[in-house]
């Protein structure tokens, strides 16, 4: 029987569970942030002047750079999805024999959740599950390799709760082998907004306050060394949401790096952002001048709009010490498609991927990993790996109609991806 969309929506929201956040708690939380903002604004006036000066100097020092091409990479390639070979046919393909369940079914009508969260450059795996059912506290474990037990990790002290709901710390791998722990939900306990950085055992714990007042808070920051970067919502523009990009040392003052930021990324010591005007700008995590990078757009294509970039999956921008990957928009406005570009830091094209609506790029060691939708009907999708050295495009999963539970990720020579059979991790040593 045909259904009416509005009726279906009404039915879907007709049985809401009780609201965990009480109105008075929200007011108190808002007041507390407002007080911090006042302190921040007063104390930070002089700092703001300095920040403006630094940013102004940075913006005016555009150093056209022309580093040497990376010798081992193939340049100027254009590859079509139809040329993709199965990843399992590649020399040097080594699937990791993980036996831990990669999917947890949450019960009737509640769908399924991926348990493999992240792989690092050493092949370690972060696994998250709900051993006592999805209504209970989630468990996070780190495994050093298949067949090995979980690493004993000292978790940071409890982050407290959010309106009676317990929150937990969730770890993720940092580039330098440490762990970043962020909370599963905002906490209302005064002074508790922040994150922990520890070693892989949970030791050498550093707690970093991340609420700078005025609504500026590093919810899930990028970390390089003992410094964080994060974007903070500024407002909506005609073509999407505008952010400011901030940085701060763990114990130091906040610095605004850029305004009018559409998307940003920090990895391998590089900070990269695309402005709402469509410029790609970079600086090193160690500081130094900001540089525009000329994006080698394909003829007939253009920089994706802020709106398109912000709709382009979980991570529209990928960065490594040797390359950048982002989508470009091709074709007429009313029938455009999104194709993927990878290029080096001087803007030399490495590869242009055609035949797919591509998103969620991730750069590992000599490899670009991404998701792609087949343009006809946008129903079928798969995960792919392009080898920057050999120029080979490989399909990590069969092209099929099913929701991928997790977007593909590259770390070093390892790749983590999901397909209909669940989650997989493999090492690629062929290039």
């Amino acid at each position: 029987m045909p259904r009416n969309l509005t009726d279906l929506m009404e039915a879907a929201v007709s049985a809401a569970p009780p609201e965990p956040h009480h109105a008075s708690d929200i007011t108190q939380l808002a007041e507390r942030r407002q007080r911090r903002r006042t302190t921040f604004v007063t104390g930070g006036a002089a700092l703001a002047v300095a920040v403006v000066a630094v940013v102004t100097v940075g913006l005016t020092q555009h150093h056209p750079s022309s580093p040497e091409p990376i010798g081992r990479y193939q340049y100027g390639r254009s590859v079509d999805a139809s040329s993709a070979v199965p990843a399992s046919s590649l020399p040097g393909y080594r699937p990791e024999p993980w036996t831990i369940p990669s999917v947890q079914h949450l019960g009737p009508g509640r769908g399924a959740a991926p348990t493999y969260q992240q792989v690092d450059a050493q092949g370690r795996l972060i696994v998250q599950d709900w051993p006592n059912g999805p209504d209970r506290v989630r468990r996070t474990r780190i495994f050093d390799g298949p067949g090995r037990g979980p690493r004993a990790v000292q978790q940071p002290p409890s982050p407290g709760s959010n309106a009676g709901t317990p929150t937990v710390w969730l770890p993720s791998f940092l580039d330098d082998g440490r762990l970043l722990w962020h909370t599963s939900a905002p906490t209302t306990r005064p002074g508790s907004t922040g994150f922990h950085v520890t070693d892989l055992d949970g030791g050498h714990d550093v707690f970093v306050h991340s609420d700078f007042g005025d609504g500026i808070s590093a919810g899930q920051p990028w970390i390089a060394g003992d410094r964080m970067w994060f974007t903070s919502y500024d407002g909506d523009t005609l073509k999407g949401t505008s952010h400011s990009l901030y940085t701060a040392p763990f114990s130091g003052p906040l610095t605004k790096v850029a305004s009018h930021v559409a998307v940003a990324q920090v990895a391998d010591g590089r900070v990269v952002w695309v402005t709402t005007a469509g410029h790609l700008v970079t600086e090193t995590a160690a500081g130094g001048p900001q540089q525009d990078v000329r994006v080698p757009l394909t003829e007939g294509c253009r920089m994706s709009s802020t709106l398109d970039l912000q709709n382009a999956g979980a991570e529209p921008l990928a960065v490594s010490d040797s390359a950048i990957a982002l989508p470009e928009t091709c074709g007429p406005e009313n029938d455009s498609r999104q194709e993927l570009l990878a290029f080096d830091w001087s803007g030399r094209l490495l590869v242009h991927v055609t035949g797919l609506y591509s998103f969620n790029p991730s750069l590992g060691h000599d490899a670009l990993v991404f998701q792609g939708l087949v343009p006809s009907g946008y129903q079928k999708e798969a995960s792919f790996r392009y080898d920057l050295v050999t120029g080979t495009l490989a399909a990590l999963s069969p092209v099929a109609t099913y929701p991928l539970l997790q977007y593909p990720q590259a770390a070093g020579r390892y790749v983590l991806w999901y397909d209909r059979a669940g989650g997989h991790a493999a090492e690629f040593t062929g290039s």
Partner: protein
Amino acid sequence: MARRDSEAFTAFVLASQPRLRRTAYLMCGDWQLASDHVQEALIRVYRHWPRLRSEPEAQAYARKAVVSVVIDAKRKRSSTEVPVDSVVDTPEVDTAARSADRDLLGRCLAQVPPRQRACLVLRHYDDLSVSEVATVLGCSEGTVKSQTARGLETLQAAFARETNDDLLVSGRE
């Protein structure tokens, strides 16, 4: 903010929170996340509270904040369902039929990109006009129309795959 303003803000939260939460839920598919997003949005509203001169103005600002927070959060996470640590018990009124509707819609909406989903929810649940949706999303009316059409197309295709049936929309301009 003066105490009477705090009281007025609390009253505003009490009055607007349920509706905003339902909108956020339709956009993100998770009640706990929806509650967190609405909390974050209402904190943004608080900062602007002295400049919001009327109830409709505050409501419009709050709705805009909720949509921004949800879309912003969505950008940072996987496009798939990620359950929360602790789920509040569902009341008994959640009958099997309603539960099935909720799950069906959730699965279908999950296949629609965030901005298009926002257009669908604002147009077909919050009953906003194209012009009002454009104001909330900070974009042109043409963009709202195209995003709504593309979102609806994706949603109807997903619905047809799930049910072998049609998903109809009310006759709005």
